């Protein structure tokens, strides 16, 4: 039995599609317990029972569409007009614009491609050191992860069955903490180059606002709608998708119909990849819970760990290793059902757990061997992967510090969550 498990792990490590590994382990489990494998169908059909799940395809599509339109340029211009006058402001512009954009496009690497391509040359032009720019842009690709309505937040809410609007509120302060720390560090590093990007002018700001007029209502409608309870998250996703479609295709005419079809397909590839893992994980989770794996895991952990604090330390180490190997979506789907009951035994709030989980996973975008941002940046800016790793390291350490704060200061997450 152990041999089979080891074999499955090896297959996963040499690149087998994760869903096939998970499905195989579930089927082997069912087989061993003498359960008819037709049960797999019932588990996978469970995809059609999960509430609010339509939010995932709809938000993903809206994000891809925004990324392909002129919205990234407009966002950078608007952010620049708003805070670019601060000394060292262009680095702050980059951080803020990326965070906002990632929140809406779901941290799938689009940010680096859509925004990095604009910001990287701009930073270079303003005389920021090259390593700093590379590190900043690479890090920013997953920065808005904790801000609503990011896909990982929604996925966690769906899997852990916690209210998604509370989760959205919980992410705000931890996300701001990350931004502040990175922003402060950017200002410190560039203390010798404190020329502002430009002088502040109302005319400039007005022009940028006017240019973005069509996109501006989006955050208000989506976030306002969800926070006020006016919209369910799936409804907000539908409104966003339809609105973005109408604006970018019919009003602005930046996306042609054939381009639209390509975007629809592209975005649904990611959705298919996430949801198929969710589907087969319903089977493996079902099996693990029926054989009381979480219970046994807890008993093992309980023998080693008695206090919640020690548990959090252990959890954090585990999550950092997990994040270095698995992408955020697979990690949520696969691991959250297992650690939720254990964390509950230690009295850890489910919402706090979610924020810790996602914040730790955010580091996974930047750590070898599978950090997605590293490879996208390496590819996009044509730099060797090790160089990107080195440039990103200081940012990674700052994020690590903020993750530690987030982990051991639950009130930071729970204060706004209510």
């Amino acid at each position: 039995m152990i041999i089979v498990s080891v074999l499955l792990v090896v297959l996963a490590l040499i690149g087998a599609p994760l869903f096939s590994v998970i499905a195989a382990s579930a089927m082997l489990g069912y087989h061993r317990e003498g359960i008819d494998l037709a049960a797999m169908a019932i588990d996978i059909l469970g995809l059609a029972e999960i509430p609010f799940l339509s939010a995932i395809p709809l938000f993903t599509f809206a994000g891809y569409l925004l990324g392909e339109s002129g919205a990234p340029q407009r966002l950078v211009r608007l952010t620049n007009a708003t805070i670019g006058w601060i000394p060292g402001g262009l680095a702050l512009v980059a951080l803020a614009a990326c965070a906002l954009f990632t929140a809406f496009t779901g941290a799938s690497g689009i940010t680096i491609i859509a925004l990095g391509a604009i910001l990287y040359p701009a930073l270079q032009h303003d005389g920021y050191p090259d390593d700093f720019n590379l590190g900043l842009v690479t890090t920013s690709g997953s920065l808005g992860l904790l801000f609503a309505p990011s896909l990982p937040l929604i996925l966690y809410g769906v899997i852990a069955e916690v209210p998604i609007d509370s989760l959205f509120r919980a992410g705000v302060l931890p996300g701001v903490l990350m931004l502040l720390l990175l922003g402060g560090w950017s200002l410190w590093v560039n203390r010798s180059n404190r020329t502002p990007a430009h002088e502040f002018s109302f005319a400039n700001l007005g022009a940028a606002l006017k240019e973005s007029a069509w996109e501006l209502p989006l955050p208000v409608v989506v976030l306002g709608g969800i926070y006020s309870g006016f919209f369910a998250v799936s409804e907000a996703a539908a409104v966003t998708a339809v609105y973005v479609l109408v604006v970018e295709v019919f009003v602005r005419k930046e996306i042609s119909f054939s381009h639209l079809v390509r975007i629809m397909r592209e975005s649904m590839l990611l959705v298919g990849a996430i949801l198929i893992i969710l589907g087969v994980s319903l089977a493996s989770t079902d099996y693990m819970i029926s054989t009381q794996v979480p219970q046994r895991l807890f008993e093992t952990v309980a023998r080693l760990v008695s206090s919640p604090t020690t548990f959090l330390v252990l959890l954090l180490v585990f999550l950092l290793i997990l994040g270095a190997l698995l992408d955020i979506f697979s990690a949520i789907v696969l691991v959250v059902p297992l650690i939720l009951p254990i964390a509950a035994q230690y009295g850890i709030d489910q919402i706090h757990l979610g924020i810790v989980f996602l914040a730790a996973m955010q580091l996974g975008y930047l750590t070898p061997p599978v950090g997605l941002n590293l490879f996208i940046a390496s590819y996009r800016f044509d730099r060797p992967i090790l160089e990107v790793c080195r440039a990103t390291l200081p940012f990674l350490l700052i994020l690590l510090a903020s993750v530690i704060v987030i982990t051991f200061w639950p009130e930071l997450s729970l204060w706004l969550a209510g």
Partner: protein
Amino acid sequence: MARLTWRVLKPLERLGTAVENALLVLLLGAMMVLATAQIVLRLFFDAGIIWADEFLKILVLWIAMVGSVATSRNRRHLRIDLSHFLPERLSRWPLFAVDAFAAVVCGFIAWHTARYLVLASGETVLLGIPAWTVQGILPVAFGLMAYRFALCSLKEFATLFGRDGDEAG
């Protein structure tokens, strides 16, 4: 032989992609229209379509399945990818094995989900529509994925060992 097989398979692949694209656009479009209609009805007419929520959930299932089939076309399924750290030729070796593995797993799931449809015949969804019309996507999708992965595996095999590799590529 390989050349002949490929001449049959290639138009089939093109047709397959077209059907996938059409389905994805249709499903996503239907989802947007239906979800928006529900909101409008709720807000302005204090009404709703009874079957809309169930239908939306079925659309999610179908998008998941069709999207997954489309994803298997160009090796875009989520996986742990360590190949950046390996030399080109060495990194190709495991691909042949893992695609074959995925093909076998998908084949198994296709078979057992098909069995389920037979076992559960008589169930209905929405307003009395036989459930298999909706759930039938499972064996079909996993069957197609098994085929896709098997094809990928064979291609890798051919590139590694045979002369036919270029034709199949």
